[in-house]
């Protein structure tokens, strides 16, 4: 612990990141450039989220990390350990107990409160990037609110697939102004972006931070005749029987057996502890 400054980054860096966060909160959805630091992990492993978490954490915080909803995957475990070691903060897997939650690609099923901060890891912060490669041009488009191009992407989806096939990183408009990439969360989570908690987005490689203050209006883009639709696998969770959570498909063998389970492991565990049982819970128990 004594080898590191609290939460790994030095205080000047944390102040710089906090200034970017405050600016991001003041202009919801606007991508604030910041001087992203080298972190002791590769780009793509959450360096942006880790820096935002480091600048946000206080010694009294309880920290939770999820990767695709799960607390026990490599990315989540290693980032949790990183902050246990460098910040010495308490960590938890329970959503309700956490004050800062760093997430990759999911919003927890359980509704967050005003006392919590949700930190997203963002690979590509620019929603217009795949249609307009020039950064100069995309910045200009944001500045002048020229967002027609975003609908070209949705048009292409419908033309090719008969529906808006974008299933994750679904573009949203924030407070009627900035179009924002909500990071690669499934579009199932998009309606949850209007929440009580502060949401911070960090992109390490791209050196951008953006933010959503609590209760910010967030609208998923769509066409009048092809409205935004929230999608999930039409199954119940095999373990806890939930019919309203986002599900992962798990291949069980090479003979076509599969099961659908909640992607939010904490949510699923809590339900099972409450006595809920899915159709395959007994079979899964037998496997372990």
């Amino acid at each position, binding site marked *: 612990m004594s080898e590191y400054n609290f939460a790994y980054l030095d205080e000047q860096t944390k102040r710089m990141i906090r200034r970017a966060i405050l600016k991001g909160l003041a202009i919801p959805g606007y991508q604030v450039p910041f001087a992203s630091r080298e972190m002791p992990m590769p780009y793509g492993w959450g360096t942006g989220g880790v820096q935002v978490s480091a600048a946000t954490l206080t010694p009294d915080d309880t920290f939770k990390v999820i990767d695709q909803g799960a607390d026990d995957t490599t990315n989540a475990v290693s980032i949790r350990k990183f902050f246990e070691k460098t910040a010495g903060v308490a960590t938890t897997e329970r959503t309700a107990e956490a004050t800062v939650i760093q997430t990759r690609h999911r919003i927890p099923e359980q509704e967050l409160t005003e006392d919590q901060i949700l930190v997203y890891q963002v690979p590509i912060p620019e929603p217009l990037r795949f*249609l307009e490669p020039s950064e100069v041009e995309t910045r200009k488009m944001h500045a*002048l609110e*020229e967002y*027609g*191009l975003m*609908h*070209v992407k949705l*048009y*292409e989806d*419908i*033309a*090719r697939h008969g529906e808006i096939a974008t299933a994750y990183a679904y573009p949203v408009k924030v407070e009627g102004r900035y179009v924002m990439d909500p990071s690669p969360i499934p579009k199932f989570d998009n309606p949850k972006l209007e929440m009580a908690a502060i949401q911070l987005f960090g992109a390490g490689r791209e050196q951008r931070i953006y933010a959503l203050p609590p209760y910010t209006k967030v609208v998923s883009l769509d*066409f*009048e*005749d*092809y409205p935004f639709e929230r999608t999930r696998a039409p199954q119940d969770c095999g373990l806890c029987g939930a019919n309203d959570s986002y599900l992962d498909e798990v291949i069980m063998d090479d003979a076509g057996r599969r099961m659908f389970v909640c992607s939010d492991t904490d949510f699923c565990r809590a339900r099972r502890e409450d006595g809920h049982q899915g159709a395959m819970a007994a079979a899964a128990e037998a496997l372990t």
Partner: protein
Amino acid sequence: MKDMSPIDRPLLQVAGLSKYYGARIGCEAVGFELWPGEVMGIVGESGSGKTTLLNCLAGQLAPDAGQVLFDLDGIATDTVTMSEPERRRLARTDWAFVHQHAADGLRMNVSAGGNVGERLMAIGARRYGDIRTQALDWLGRVEISGDRIDDRPTAFSGGMRQRLQIARNLVTGPRLVFMDEPTGGLDVSVQARLLDLMRGLVREMGLSAIIVTHDLAVVRLLADRLMVMKDGQVVETGLTDQVLDDPQHGYTQLLVSSVLQV
């Protein structure tokens, strides 16, 4: 299509337009008026400042001196001094720009329908069905068969790409079209078809257009009036037939006599 009844003022008034590249002249002291429904050709050899002039007119290049007054609801507005958001709005509503290379004017990784629909969506169209219908209509008008609507321009021939670029530009019903060598790089039979199409569209929609080209046949077919440029200066102006059949300036005479008579 357009309300053309009271033509009592020019659409575009240009005065003293100059652009310098350091000590060299891009174009110097160019002035003219363009009236609604009129097609003007700018001819001259490579390096004579045609494209510089066109880019200055279309707001893609900032001129060093001069005015470009565009008629906006009866008020002649200087597009050189207007703010960039206004100019960009103009560029996707009242103006259109047809590039020499279709790849510069199209989104090559977006389907033909998406290319045509982009300007509609940029000005607020949010009904997929309507966008699709308009895109199909415009593909038809530029003689691209409807079943190619979901193909990308990369799968199109040069002539088709150019026609798609024209459809993409005209879908919002602009009043002024800038064209930079629209037939450059196409073989003659494809050129002829494209010229025929453009002539039809210009007449039908009552478009005003400024066409930059070094091909005298193109202006003979399309342009009402002609401006001849050399070394950044306008050396001769007049009605197309008058300039081409009775050239006054020595350079124009050279230009006209350089065309091979087949």
